[in-house]
């Protein structure tokens, strides 16, 4: 059986193709404004890698904040449901998931079957998201990768406000003016976001094991801060940014399509467009 999962988020799209339950292709890239087109483009790229055509795929399930816009998908499942299935596949011992992506940070409690038991989301705020990290890296005039790397060398903890990306940026500028070392500022940024993410996670409870996924999980500096904040080490699966797409593909293979949600969204868009 060949299925696909597409995670269309606010900033990036990730595609995973499963053939007989094995990952045969992956593709990812920025969505830009034309999100639906981006989904199609990277889906086709993944198909090409696998040597497949669209007609060879039996089911496509979309997820992510813009997932309902993937019009060629057979179904849609919410982000947390996809995360749960993806993590359950990669790290079956995990009972708590922390997913920090570009526009949202969330904590999910799951059971042994990979079903969502509870969840908490940071609401309408960039603090505790990948966007916050990007903003701070810009303020430090360095790529995120470098910020991640140098923060690991810091041994100094500097308190910083992570309640707001705008104030956070001002604070970084202020720390630069105080001639604080960049590596210490980088750690302060990660510590601040980790504190924010940990507080969201505590809402659902810190049940072991804890898996960290999403694009920010690739930032080793942030993961180190989070481990310190939680007082335990989180599991970071390979390609943590693809876990949502993998979970959607797993859902497709399980026949979980969430048809009515997709129908509802399409109907709403049709009305909005005056059709």
């Amino acid at each position: 059986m060949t299925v696909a999962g597409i995670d269309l988020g606010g900033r990036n799209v990730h595609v995973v193709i499963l053939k007989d339950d094995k990952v045969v292709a992956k593709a990812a890239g920025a969505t830009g404004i034309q999100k639906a087109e981006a989904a199609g483009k990277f889906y086709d790229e993944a198909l090409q890698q696998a040597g497949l055509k669209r007609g060879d795929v039996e089911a496509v399930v979309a997820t992510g904040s813009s997932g309902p816009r993937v019009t060629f998908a057979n179904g849609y499942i919410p982000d947390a449901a996809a995360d749960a299935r993806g993590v359950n596949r990669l790290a079956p011992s995990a009972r708590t998931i922390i997913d920090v992506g570009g526009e949202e940070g969330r904590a999910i409690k799951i059971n042994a079957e990979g079903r969502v038991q509870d969840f908490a989301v940071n609401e309408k705020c960039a603090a505790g998201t990948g966007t916050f990290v990007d903003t701070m890296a810009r303020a430090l005039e360095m790529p995120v990768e470098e910020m991640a790397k140098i923060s690991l060398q810091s041994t100094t903890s500097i308190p910083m406000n992570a309640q707001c990306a705008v104030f956070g940026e001002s604070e970084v500028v202020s720390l630069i003016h105080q001639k604080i070392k960049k590596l210490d500022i980088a750690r302060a940024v990660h510590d601040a976001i980790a504190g924010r993410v940990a507080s969201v996670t505590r809402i659902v409870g810190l049940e072991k094991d804890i898996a960290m996924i999403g694009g920010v999980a690739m930032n080793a500096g942030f993961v180190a801060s989070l481990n310190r904040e939680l007082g335990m080490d989180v599991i970071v699966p390979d390609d943590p940014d693809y876990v949502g797409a993998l979970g959607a593909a797993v859902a497709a293979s399980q026949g979980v399509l969430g048809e009515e949600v997709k129908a509802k969204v399409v109907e709403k868009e049709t009305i909005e467009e005056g059709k």
Partner: protein
Amino acid sequence: MAKYKTKGLDCWGKAKELRQRYYQDYKEAHDRGALRWEGGAWSFDAVPQSLEGEVHGLTEEPYGASIGANPAMQVRYQEAAEGKWGCANDLCAYLRNYWGSIILNEYAFGGEWPHADFIFQNHICCSHAKWLQVAGEIAGGEIPYFCFDVGVGAYDKIGERQINYVVEQLYDGIEFLEKFTGRKIDDEKLIKKVHNTYDSSCYWAKACELNQAVPAPLDEKTMFSLYVLGTLEKSNDDIANFYKNLLYPEVKDRVDNQIAAVANEQCRVFGDSQPPWGFLRVYRYLEQYGIVSNANLYTMSLIGWWNINEKGDMVPYPTLEEQGVTLKTREDALRFLVEGEIKGKLEWAPFYGATYKNDLVSRMVKQWKCDAAIIHLNRGCEGTAQHQMEMKIALQKLGLPVMTFEGNMADQRQFDEARTDRLIDLFVKETLGLKKVA
């Protein structure tokens, strides 16, 4: 084939008519030589409504909520309050709607803003303490203003001292009303109005108590439209008659005949706080999965009066007839009015601490047989949003799956509809594991 019979309420049309007439009467009051007053939905309306002659009130919160249900109007009003008056956008959303309406000189039910002759208000929260004082200033006039304090403690702390404290202030209020309107309080009318207040408050609670039945005869979306009458004018003859002689008997009949609010009821959900008024369609979505939202401390005891009985159950507060009381004097009327309002309104108790809220909601989910809870983290009302996360933990300890979503009862700019759709979808299908049944 549906599991239960279902049908709309026969008294639905009457509820709509009463609400419409209330707003129309306020608008036209001066044309008929009647007095107009502004106040809160918890303002003991029996007192100003007992002035001689025709009197019509406008209560702040339901007016703000009406605007909240109209997205286009709401944004204009709030932007007027924030942009033209400098009002902070984290203040009560009803208050911002109300002030915006005055600033733009638009009455949400048509025409220009109808200025009040006086204000009769009480301090139930920080917003109410200044709401109408500032409203009077925005309106550009010196509107006579009387405000009294009701912060005397939760229901289990109420004794003679607390009742006396509020009653004494109502005597002052009567002096104020008579001085500024030139009309007298009619004691016979006051006794009738207090009687009506008891009927509205106790019979709404009795109707809500019937929602413990399986299947539930009422769903919360419908209940929102029914409790509102009590927030407008519980002392009104027609409104009291509605609760006692139309709604309560009809809900009882639905229970006796197993007429369900949701034909395929399979899951009962507990709610909290006011909903985002422009987003009520979510309840219809839940119905497709056989979910009925059948209990909520806010919906049931904002106007409904309750007692905790010796078994520890929440039961409707007794009517005057059930207490064997006949009101004869002004003193009787004021004392019983105050006692009912400050002892029976359990919604007030959480203002005094999370312990009260956790205790009450824990009783309710058992009595109303709820399977799960959906909590609206309401940015628009500091009062009802207090202790919501503590409440979530308390309900989870009882074994209930609980979801929260952040929003605002009357400011859609602070509510992400698409994201909330996704969260609710996740909760219904994944956490509750429900499938569509309709």
